[in-house]
């Protein structure tokens, strides 16, 4: 799997353990904390 960037902390993520869908796109996270932070306010991290 290609490496994705966690939009919250900027780390490279190589697995799909923590993901969220927003605006038709899947975002990958390094941990539950980053996913929760993203889910609270996705717009902050997607523009």
């Amino acid at each position, binding site marked *: 799997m290609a490496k994705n*960037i966690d939009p919250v902390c*900027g*780390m*490279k993520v190589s697995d799909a353990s923590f993901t969220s869908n927003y605006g038709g796109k899947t975002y990958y996270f390094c941990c539950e904390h980053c996913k929760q*932070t993203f889910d*609270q*306010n996705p*717009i*902050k991290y997607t523009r």
Partner: protein
Amino acid sequence: MPTDPVCGMYVSEDSSIFTVVDGEKIYFCSKSCMQEYTSPDEREKSLRYRLAVAWIFSIPILLITYLLQFAYRDYVLLLLTLPVQFYSGYVFYQGAYMSIKSRSGNMDLLITIGTLTAFVFSLFITIFPRAIISASIYYDASAFIITLILTGNYVENSTKKRANRSASRLVDMIPATSHFITDAGTVEDRKTGEISVGDRILVKPGEMFPCDGKIYEGVTEVDQSVLTGEQEPVVKRVGDPVFSGTSNLNGSVRMEVSKTGRNTTVGQIYDMIRKAATGRAKVQKIADRFSAIFIPIVLTVAVISAIFWLIFLSYVGSPYSVEIAVLSFVSVVVIACPCAIGLAGPITMLISSSISSENGIVVKNAGSLDRLAKATRVVFDKTGTLTGSVPEISSITVSGSIKEDDLLAISASLEMNSNHPVAKAITNEAKRRHLILHECTGITETPGTGIEGVVDGNKITLTRSMEKSGSAVGIYVNGVKMGSIGLEYPLREGSKEAIGKLQSMGLSVSVLSGDSEAAVKDVAQILGLNDFHSGVFPGQKADIVKEYQQKGDYVIFVGDGINDTVALESADVGIAMGSGSDIARDSGDLIILSNDLNSIPKAIVIAEKTISKIRQNIFWAIGYNSALIPVAAGILVPAFGLGVYSVLPMLAALAMGFSSTTVVTNSILMKGRTEKILRDIRKTGVKMPVLGST
């Protein structure tokens, strides 16, 4: 994947080279990078020795190569090159090894490949002089590339050190000894490092506070400018907090220590400055992406260039085909070293955080600088942010026969047991009127409602409520209302001026508060704001921030209280007031230590300048590397002949050092220019720059 804070390289989390700072693991690509981070002085000393050796041997190498001819000359040059290649150049091999191990190229890898190619080729010619017809040795190239790049590293190191000095200056100011007060009440001098939380110390006039704590005896004026940038001394009395690094001006005070060492305000600011310099703004990702693809491209171009010259020169019958192929390979590899790209972000961030701290602004999250520079709207919490956090009594209404002072005295007797800001206002007013307070028993405080207890056998109940004009406290004695106290929050000094500056910068400004509409409207009118929200619950503050974001605004939220935490986190940039709660400070991306709202336009200017400077640096570094690769690959050969290759490898090293120095100098220039704008912000009536204009 974490990045090395020194060279910016990606490092695997499996790496055994790491250090732990405040419970956080910091990974490094090599032991030399770790040494530079943990003990920069030793690293500088080692670099100085390596540089001295490099210059001492490189100059004779150059002179012999170009001026002298004698028997065994090549062997003498080999001996002179060995210390430069393997002692001075050792630092690059360490980085190159780690680069191969983590499969992510770095500048050390390119320097190693370039210089070893020139060295091994020369060694081969030295041992087998007739193996390649007309071939020369290039010990001068390999030695000078190492020497010049090491010189560039040394200059860069010294510059970084200078930029870091303002952060270290904070810590250096802390006095080495403190006047410890023993249980017997005597005073003895002890090392500040031996002072613990709970100890009592004496701080004399003219001395600096060595730790954070609270005054329990004495009154003095304190110069807190080092933390807040505010030059006006602050009066500190019993119960007031004092901070390490601030100056005790004119009174002898005794304090109880609450924080020592790294946990003190100064210690934390120092850590934040250091961490901010290792933080990454979003714009730096351009550099990361570029570096990741750049090194494989460079090696490919170098190989293609070498093969081209080998085939072409062999085809035309030139005796220099192998030699030129090697030299073009070395030149391309050296000229493309992306060290300036690696420097572009960190050095600017370091200088930016130094400017911020000098202005009483702590940037906790470097990633927020991109968003701060794009801000279109500032949303202020009202109480504690636009206004002070402690209200003032605006009116006292008495019902029945009780006197105003008696009503205030019984209220204060109860409120002195509470930490609520309203309680503080009432007890302050009672103290101001020199009223005698009574003992109070059976106290029960209900958050959001009020407090009750028994004073002189009477059950006293104080209810805190929102009235049309602001906060009010109803006073009941044995269930009968005896009067009420009206409270209002005075506007924070400089708030109107700060909002005017933000508006002149093209930003929209809003205010929101849990207070009544009348109270919020009053404040909004005084400040010239049309957009305000009243009666807002804590959770709704974040919803309002999100609504603005959905409309396309980049939102800065400025708050101070626990109830602002969610909004601080939801906003594109959360700015917490230094006087605010610990939780608010933890949630904010930035902290305004001075509590001066004028720091907000300053922070925006600093962010804008920082991002623009990082962009300039990245553009310069990428443009430079890309533009010179064709030169190294031989584009100038038709004009100047193959002779250019006798100097190109060294010129490549020189140009590379120049590129790094330019990036560093460009970042340093930011300090002077930004400080000039910040000085203009301090002056009233000066037109602010509209964001994006420069």
